[in-house]
């Protein structure tokens, strides 16, 4: 693999090296240009000198294998790869934005900023998981931001693609990852659980919110294993007055047993975007490090019976969907409300990990300033929320599985679709009123939701005989 040293001005497979953008321990990033490509590009060249760690070589193979399969705004666009037989490299889109690593210098950050940044990273992570890829090395330096604020995840050298051979799993028995961020199961060589990334996300959020790493910076295997039996100090112990909802979210991500963490990154993003909806548990109330016995028991349990790791990341995500039901509570719609309850129950019954978001739209006028109270002086928003919760009572869901949202918008269909986008909803259940000439002409809310939604939509109608009865 001997080759001449690279220098500015060298041309490799049509890519001209301009300048070094970054020199890291594992790789060097060159800004490159290509006659046929206008977009700014970088070439990642691994540092594979004589005697280099075999894991670094295989890691670069892994990155070359996985990157071309990825798409979307949350990953750098793959452009080209160079063969190991001549010179290994990856050319990809240059992300001209800051790294999350830079924010660490300013930690502790305000809880609102932690939540906003965390939601962006969790959203990116969910999009990655949807493509069957687990990052397994998430940390502030592997997150960049685009100019529009979208998080971009980089560095796939330790990643696992659920539908491609795992070259690292076969060859290395030592834990692979970055010490402070590595999940307990990774320490034991488990590489196929998407929830490992949620643990690393929890470490990242903890670090941003407190300025401290929850498990320090261990350098030995014994040091790494400490996280199996020792709870991190709760953020409230480091920062008095720390918001309980954020502590709840962070410690939920840091559970030692993956089954006790959030099911999906979308659920983490959801909670970070809706602090007032976070159901507080004992985690939120902790003020000092404790619970050693609990943590160990939880860890032991996680290797016992009943540990379910789906063989496919897609299956795992599918078993924990975010279901959104759009509830119209207009008088006279009781039969449709009941039909919606039945349909929602059926959808939720299929997946034990499903979470339900009950949404109702309070239609506002486009021009006039609406009064937010009704004729009796009741707050319309609060009243709608009360009615929504009343509607959901019949479903008998435990509080941690259901949230309630009243959206105020002039265009209900647009508001519902936007909500589904923002919250990575997997399945929308929406009622449709009886067909009428006007609705056929103007288009109904449900038909627009069907046309524009980013996910599966179930349209619920009251059966004919029910409607025509009497």
């Amino acid at each position, binding site marked *: 693999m001997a080759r001449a040293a690279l220098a500015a001005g060298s041309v490799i497979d049509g890519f001209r090296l301009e300048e070094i953008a970054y020199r890291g321990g594992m790789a060097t990033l060159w800004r490159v240009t290509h006659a046929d490509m206008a977009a700014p590009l970088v070439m990642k060249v691994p540092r594979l000198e004589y005697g280099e760690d*075999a894991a670094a*070589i*295989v890691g670069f*193979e892994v990155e*070359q*294998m996985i990157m*071309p*399969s990825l798409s979307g705004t949350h990953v750098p666009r793959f452009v080209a790869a160079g*063969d*190991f*037989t001549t010179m*290994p490299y990856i050319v990809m889109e240059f992300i001209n934005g800051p790294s999350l690593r830079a924010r660490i210098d300013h930690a502790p950050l305000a809880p609102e900023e932690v939540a906003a940044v965390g939601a962006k990273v969790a959203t990116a992570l969910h999009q990655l998981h949807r493509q069957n890829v687990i990052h397994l090395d998430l940390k502030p330096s592997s997150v960049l931001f685009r100019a529009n604020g979208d998080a971009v995840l980089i560095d796939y050298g330790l990643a696992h693609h*659920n*539908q*491609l*051979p*795992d*070259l690292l*799993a*076969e*060859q290395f028995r030592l834990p692979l990852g970055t010490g402070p961020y590595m999940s307990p199961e990774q320490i034991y060589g488990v590489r196929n659980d998407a929830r490992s990334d949620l643990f690393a996300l929890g470490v990242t959020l903890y670090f941003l919110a407190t300025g401290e790493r929850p498990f320090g910076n261990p350098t030995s295997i014994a040091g790494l294993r400490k996280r199996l039996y020792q709870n991190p100090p709760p953020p409230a112990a480091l920062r008095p007055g720390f918001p309980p909802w954020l502590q709840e979210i962070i410690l939920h991500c840091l559970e030692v047993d993956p089954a006790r963490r959030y099911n999906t990154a979308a659920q983490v993003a959801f909670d970070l975007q809706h602090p007032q909806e976070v159901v507080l548990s004992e985690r939120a109330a902790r003020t000092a490090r404790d619970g050693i016995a609990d943590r160990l028991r939880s860890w032991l349990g996680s290797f016992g019976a009943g540990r379910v790791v789906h063989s*496919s990341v897609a299956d795992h995500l599918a078993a924990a969907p975010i279901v959104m039901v759009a509830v119209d509570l207009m008088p006279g719609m009781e039969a449709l409300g009941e039909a919606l309850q039945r349909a929602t129950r059926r959808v939720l019954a299929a997946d034990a990990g499903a979470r339900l978001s009950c949404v109702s739209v309070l239609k506002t006028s486009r021009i006039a300033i609406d009064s937010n109270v009704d004729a009796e002086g009741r707050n319309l928003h609060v009243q709608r929320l009360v009615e929504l919760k009343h509607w959901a009572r019949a479903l008998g869901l435990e509080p941690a599985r259901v949230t309630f949202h009243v959206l105020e918008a002039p265009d209900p269909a647009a508001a519902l679709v936007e909500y589904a986008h923002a919250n990575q909803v997997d399945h929308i259940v929406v009622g449709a009123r009886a067909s009428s000439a006007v609705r056929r002409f103007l288009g109904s809310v449900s038909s627009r939701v069907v046309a524009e939604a980013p996910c599966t939509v179930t349209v619920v109608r009251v059966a004919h005989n029910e409607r025509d009865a009497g």
Partner: protein
Amino acid sequence: MRICLLSDIHANREALAACLAHAKTIGTDQFAFLGDLVGYGADPAWVVDTITGYCETGAICVLGNHDEAVFTEARADMRPEARAVVEWTRAQLDQRQRGFLEQLPLQVERDGMLFVHANAWAPSRWDYIASPFDARSSMAATTCRQTFCGHVHEPQLYHMGADWRAGAFTPVAGTPIPLGAQRRWLAIPGSVGQPRDGNPAACAALFDTANRSLTYYRVPYDAAAAAAKVRAAGLPQNLGARLEAGQ
């Protein structure tokens, strides 16, 4: 070039016809038949004629142990039911069809790819590749970067890095797998005519040499019809049931 890999057809006309039709829909420039054209199934003559036709226009085809059994004495270690089918198959084929099987090579090497029925270390001994260890022995016995073989009926992909450690992967149908140039690969597409992994759909694979990407496929076919023919031909009854269950 897009090479369609079809192995262990085992005289199953319905399965082969479905795979050939499927190959057309996904786009194929070249066919490689990895041996065991006959044995077990009820349509040896049709299968041999069809593959003879493909070979006349440039397809690759190698010899399998069931093909060899047609023109040699049955081996002592062959299963009784397989031996019964060999006798029956021999009677179904005419001189020309038997002659086609007899002239098949044990292996074909082309552009860094090895096509062989069982393994590369001793192709005529028909030893199975059942573990990463076996796969390593085979990959070490050839200078080809890619080996395509059959004999084993379950789809599998083995790979070996510079440190000579081999790994195994059970492929997911429909997902293209880039076969990196820095390691060796041994791909078993699985059986067209007698799948045994509990899924009765025929196995096939496509290798695109342009980007070295390999995609495994499962092709559903009328297994009930193929099974009915096996029964009607008076072949061992369980052979039909196996087709319908994919076992």
